[in-house]
């Protein structure tokens, strides 16, 4: 199956993505405790960067697109982080009766 030149990068990325899928799926069965989540999210981040760079060609598009893609992610981190200040510290002050 001759592969046209322009399809080579997408093909390689596709194979990398499928490999990462098997790794993350297999890795989930290892008894890593809390690190299972960390591993899963790390692999998901790697897969996302592959899709962003190889398929969506984010780096070749106008720099403004990086800013807004980054802004979307950063604002999501704000929401998670500041909501975290509430939920992570709610039980710190063990008020009797609560």
């Amino acid at each position, binding site marked *: 199956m001759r592969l046209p030149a322009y399809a080579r990068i997408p093909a390689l990325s596709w194979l990398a993505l499928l490999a990462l899928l098997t790794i993350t799926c297999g890795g989930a069965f290892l008894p890593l405790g809390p690190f299972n989540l960390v591993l899963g999210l790390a692999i998901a981040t790697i897969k996302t960067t592959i899709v962003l760079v190889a398929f969506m060609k984010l780096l070749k598009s106008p720099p403004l697109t990086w800013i807004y893609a980054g802004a979307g992610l950063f604002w999501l981190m704000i929401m998670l982080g500041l909501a975290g200040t*509430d939920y992570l510290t709610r039980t*710190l*002050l063990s008020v009797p009766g609560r």
Partner: protein
Amino acid sequence: MSVATAEPAPDAGAANYFFAGSTIRSWLLTHDHKRIALLYFMSITVFFFIGGAAATLIRLELVEPAGWLVSSDTYNRLFTMHGVVMVWFFLIPAVPNTVGNFMIPLMLGARDLAFPRLNLLSWYIYTLGGLFTVYALLVGGVDTGWTFYTPFSSMFSNSNVVWALVGVFITGFSSILTGLNFIVTIHKLRAPGLTWYRMPVFLWSLYATSVILVLATPVLAITLLLLAIERIFRIGIFDPSIGGDPLLFQHLFWFYSHPAVYIMILPGMGVVSEIIPCFARKPLFGYKFVVWCSMAIAAIGFLVWGHHMFVAGMSMYAGLVFSLLSYLVSVPSAIKVFNWTATLHRGWIRYDAPMLYALGFIGLFTTGGLTGLFLAALAVDVHVTDTYFVVAHFHYIMVGGMVTAFFAGLHYWWPKISGRMYPEYWARMAALLIFFGFNLTFFPQFILGYLGMPRRYHTYPPEFQFWHVLSSAGAAVLAVAYLMPLGYLGWSVFRGKPAGDNPWRATGLEWQTSSPPPEHNFAVTPTVTRGPYEYTPDPVPQNA
């Protein structure tokens, strides 16, 4: 009042946008940002008076401590209607979608926005959302307050919450499309020579507003969707009976709703930043500071939502974090107020109606902002949150700030929009009456708040009645005062004195084309060579 002899009206046949096609179809399917701005102007005026009617009924009801006009249930639906209609159907679209839509391409020297079809679609989505909300109001209204707190809104309220949620959900997309349109337009369609630091501050503040519109509104959409699911299927993620946390709804709701108040005030600040230099005949003091303060407000505005939940059961540590961040977000606003005031120094100040509204904005917005400091101080907030102190605070900023700035912008650009001058005497009278009526309405509410009168109360202890009567008297004055602009602006469209292309001798690009402007704004795209506010010693247009 000297009735100007009817000079020849701008010849009806001129190729300006207003007369370029007069069929209904040409208006309803227009791609022209100026016509879409007028369509928006009509819709928000309708919603302003729907919300205003609800406010008048509320103030009438509160004259008596025991409630005499309406039942408790109707009162609850009235203040919810006032909240929902005013927040999503007037305050958020008011400046960006009317004056902003009209002025952005003109100020940029562009022919139209980046996505004209999207602009029209945004108006249709807004109207569709409006129809759903009006339907919800007609078939009985909503009684949850505009904040829709669960579990009352999801499990215990028996009013048409879902229809209102659908209406607001749809209108949210209109905001997202507007924000997206403005961002791309300001980035890509600037006239040659119009660098970022040569752009008028109004465009900067609309850019900051669009960033918030785009990044905050989706969270409102998902929050209302989750609430609708919980209400329809009687089970949801906020339901305490399965371990859900009502506070999570408040976190998600206020993550949108606090930046939303900056969506409402930033365009107003932009309008004032245009008017003060024009009528003080002097460049804006500290242009770069005002610009970057707008962007700072947009960014830090996302970090402070927790100050709505200090007493709601959030942990103490989160309270301390959000209180500190809330103090930080008020610093840029303070800087802007100082810069506007400093602009008046060594100027040639003229007190036309736009300037009166702009100075009124500075006074009332500063009062509103300072009372925000009371609410950010944790210990005081425990006493005054959910009382009339909060009601007075956000009305000082929304009505005293945003609505006054909206009227300022309306009067400032009215000659450009309609080609005619509004009656100066009547406009000044309206400005003063609004300023007086507003203060009489809302200052007593600060006192009520500190006395401990909770908000959303249909009946109240008799010792609060004195302040309520004062406030209701002010509301009566305000209701009349708000009808005046509708009157004389409408009159001026037909009988107003024709205004030349640049009645205020201003320097912005929008004043360098005819008024009302032709369909494609500029015969030839202007090249910008100067900064925005070069008024001294005599005004130099940006494309001189």
